[in-house]
């Protein structure tokens, strides 16, 4: 029996495991309890509402109902969240918890969980209309306050329509990736919008950059292969190269300053690391340095293996507008105290020059008439992705005290950047500045 008593050490061992496990659990509760509280799901909230910046109802927790307006419901679904929480980074699933306070003794204090977003529901609905059923991303934010006024990721869907949800869950082509908020979680080939980065790199690292000139005959040969332009641009300097978006000129620039330098400036621009927006981590872009000259050339043009995230791209635009340091985008209204800053590691003078060059793009190449009186600075992009028609990009900002807006428009397989995406951007700005 003594022998048996000794062998009960086996049971004692497991009992100790249970004991230590409980101690560990209680320790985690003390240490991580606030994290558990902050990341609680929408299901845990039984009162309060989610509204847009103008107080328009987007979601009511007490009865689980959405806005009555179909367009608003659809266009804000990624911001608000669907019924069951399939959209991970939504206000319902992420932001609600961040509003509540946690205390070890009393747990989560049950104050009103009403949440006002910075979004303008009507602007979102307008963006949905502009995208016209295509897939893509449209977003606009105030680079001085950080308020995201418009955030649309398409395909989006009506969260109250069970037929549509069934189609999504069955993998319908029309709703492919509908649960993903592309603005935060996707990366795309940037195409010519990346030339802004190459330009900045050239401005800061190349001697006699003012004297740069390139003669474009639509085909820059690298042995068997070549970097091509859609048309012959003739002899261009840096300003004209950006305005005409001359691939040959930028490939030459990339070769001259080197892939490593371009990568460094992409990193400095914040394009290669994830951002954090109200606790939501965005996808990080990527840049691959190639030893092959032609691949290095293409990477300076924004093709090759380059990828950027729309949210990071939009923030970059804000930073260029603000000489390097702008407000970081936020879905929740901020005060001066709570506002976070985003910054890029470019010289203010570089930002100023790039700003002027982007303004030159609009005035001399895209056409100011589209934008009315607004002093818009922008860069278009047409990103080749395989054999399908290219992604259309249009990124930029309004260089004005009254309307400090930076924007990103990206239409998947939308065709020409300046015509497709530029058109949408113009309409969006018109609606935003009304």
């Amino acid at each position, binding site marked *: *029996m*003594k*022998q*048996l*008593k*000794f*062998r*009960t050490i*086996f*049971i*004692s061992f*497991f*009992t100790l*495991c*249970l*004991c230590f*496990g*409980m101690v*560990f*659990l*209680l320790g*985690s*509760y003390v240490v*991580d*309890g*606030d*994290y*558990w*509280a902050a*990341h*609680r*799901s929408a*299901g*845990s909230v*039984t009162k309060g509402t989610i509204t847009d910046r103008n107080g328009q109802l987007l979601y009511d927790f007490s009865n689980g109902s959405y806005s009555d307006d179909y367009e608003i419901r659809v266009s804000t679904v990624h911001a608000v969240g669907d019924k*069951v*929480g*399939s*959209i*991970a980074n939504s206000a319902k*699933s992420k932001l609600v*918890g961040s509003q509540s306070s*946690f*205390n*070890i*003794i*009393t*747990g*989560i204090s*049950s104050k009103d969980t009403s949440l006002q977003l910075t979004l303008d529901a009507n602007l979102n609905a307008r963006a949905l209309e502009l995208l016209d059923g295509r897939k893509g991303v449209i977003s606009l934010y105030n680079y001085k306050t950080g308020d995201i006024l418009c955030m649309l990721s398409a395909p989006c869907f009506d969260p109250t329509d069970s037929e549509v949800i069934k189609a999504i869950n069955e993998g319908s082509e029309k709703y492919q990736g509908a649960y993903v908020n592309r603005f935060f979680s996707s990366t795309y080939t940037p195409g010519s919008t990346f030339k802004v980065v190459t330009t900045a790199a050239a401005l800061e690292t190349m001697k006699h950059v003012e004297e740069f000139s390139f003669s474009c005959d639509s085909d820059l040969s690298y042995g068997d292969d070549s970097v091509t332009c859609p048309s012959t641009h003739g002899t261009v300097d840096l300003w004209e190269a950006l305005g005409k978006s001359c691939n040959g000129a930028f490939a030459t620039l990339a070769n001259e300053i080197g892939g490593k330098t371009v990568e460094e400036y992409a990193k400095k621009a914040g394009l290669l690391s994830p951002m954090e927006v109200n606790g939501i981590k965005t996808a990080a872009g990527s840049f691959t340095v190639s030893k092959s000259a032609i691949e290095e050339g293409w990477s300076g043009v924004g093709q090759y293996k380059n990828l950027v995230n729309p949210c990071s791209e939009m923030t970059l635009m804000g930073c260029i507008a603000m000489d390097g340091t702008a407000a970081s985008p936020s879905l929740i209204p901020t005060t001066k105290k709570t506002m976070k800053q985003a910054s890029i590691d470019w010289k203010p003078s570089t930002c100023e020059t790039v700003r002027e060059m982007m303004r030159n793009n609009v005035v001399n190449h895209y056409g100011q008439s589209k934008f009315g009186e607004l002093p818009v600075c922008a860069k278009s992009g047409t990103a080749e992705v395989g054999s399908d028609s290219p992604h259309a990009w249009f990124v930029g900002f309004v260089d004005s005290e009254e309307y400090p807006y930076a924007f990103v428009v990206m239409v998947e397989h939308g065709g020409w950047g300046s015509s497709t995406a530029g058109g949408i951007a113009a309409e969006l700005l018109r609606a935003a500045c009304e």
Partner: protein
Amino acid sequence: MLETLNHTYQGFSETMSAGFQTILQFFSTHTILSGFLTLVLNGACHFLLPFLALLVIVRCGRSLFQSNLEPECWGNLVLSNGNRLPLTHWENLIGRSRLADVQMLFPSVSRSHAAMIRDSKGKWTLYPLNSKNGVTVNGSTVTEAVPLKPRDIISFGGIATCFLPSTPEEERQQAARRVRPGKNFSPSVTLLVLTLFQLLLSIELMTVSAAEHLQNILVAFGILIIIMWALYFIYRIFRRTSYELETLAFFLTTLCLTITARTSPSGLKKQTFCVIVGIVLFFGLTLFLRHPEFVRKARWPMAAGSVLLLGLNLLLAAVHFGAKNWLSIGGISFQPSEFVKIVFILVGAVTLDKMFDKRNLIVTLLYSAFCVGCLGLMSDFGTALIFFVTFLAITFLRSGDLASVLFMFAAAVFAGYIVLQFKSYILARFAVYRHVWDDPSNLGYQQTRTLSAIANGGLFGKGLGNGWLHKVGASNTDLVFGVISEELGLIIAVLGVVVILMMAVFAVQEASAARSSFSVITACSAAMIFVVQTMLNVFGSTDLLPLTGVTLPFVSVGGSSMMSCWALLAFLKASDTRQNAALAVKLPQKKAKDNAETDPESWTEKTGFLYRPQQVEQNSDGLPQLHAKLTEQQSVPVPVPADEPEAPEDFPEVPVSQEPPADAPVSDADNWQDFFLKPEEWEKK
């Protein structure tokens, strides 16, 4: 039969709720008053509950663990110098080993020399084990089990001892002088506190429940309180004064009924019924365990039955494609595995003599392999894991062979790895393990919700009806820890786990005073099942372990689980050898025929052994008590020369152990051993 039960239930509940209806009517006419009362009551309940729970658990814990373990003495082996080696269990290992119950430090004695086993009727049997120098009884060598008579001369490797079992009179006296549990912490007071806890909980529950469920809640808690007190009074009738384990189990059962009423009020009737059946099972099994010899015989047909049951389950599961771990007979569905647990433990447990028999272990191994295999094929991996770990515990208890246990563990890990390759959904559970926050809406759904719910509740909980975790699937079984944390607070949830810990510590503690290996193995295995289930459940839902979906003992909602937990508690209770503690342990008979104690003169004439009485000292109550440090007495520090072990003239020279023979304190309260002569008196004669 179900209908009759239903009728009885209806009648009972109508009577009970008649009074309640009048109260309700009063309140419905005085809404302001009722609103105020609700507020005050809820507030009071909210903060009083953890303290009441703590009080119940502290009282039970102190009663269980504070008193020193009093060993029992069932007889002695008397050495030639008159020193007595007490037999403190029903099963005693005799040998040189440090872990022998009767340690004989003689070179000629093997480490495990022999076993001496007493049956429930007081008959002793000697089992020679594979010793080098053999065992003789009254001079003749024995190789097989032999029954022993009082005053038999047993010689272990040449060391002669006289076997002197306790007489029924001595046993009675021993029983009379041992301290009864419940003396310092009255179980009825603890039970009153628990009743208050239950009443407050039911009031809080009724203020937040829908009107149609009020009657059911009232009836369920009424039945629970009645059955709790009824069992207590039955114990009193049988002169049993220990009620700690039952009180603790009733505490957990109360939590279960509360969770049932909150999460699936329509199932409350069924759950209450299962609690009743569980307690009846507990009581029945307790009575069954009073007859250990019968239990050992009856377990083989039970094992056959369980094999059939599992086989049938497996067959039906195969027909139903995939996981199906329940059977439905006559409209009642149940989980066979929950009941097989009980038989599993019975089959695994053995008496001391069988522990040295490897053949016996193989039967257990095959049976265990069958059970675990069936559960694995049914895709009930959580339960299979519980069975396997329990099997490891039983194997280690029986063989003490850590190497083979580790080997089997390694083999199981390997087998588990193979299984994982084919069952991708389990692999997915492992993939998210410790990373639940990376995938909170899919694979980490339940765990993240549970953690947030714990954070929501804080230490005191948000109050019944103010949680949301119950909306998540399987909340009242797999995630029950979170639901309790959220609504009743982390304190009560942790106390629930503490109760399980106390049960396990109790089972381990009782092992040193237990009478037989059988009761130790059954109690420890039952404790093991409780502990492992608690770990898998609580840590699974909080992402300290992968989520396996097993029930929390006594607390998770489910009929089969509730019944089997109460049945397993019977094993724990049966190992309680404190005086008048367990119904499964028979009290000494009041009017037993007493064979007069050995007359010292004839004793010495017959055996040539010196006579020395049992050491008795007084405890704080002035009652004689067996020497508290039995262990010191057991070892004989100076060996008798092996070549002349039995020479009676040697005994004066043998240095006597530390104990002072002359002035051994003798009780004044009882004259029971005045009958004996003191050694020096004997020498004078």
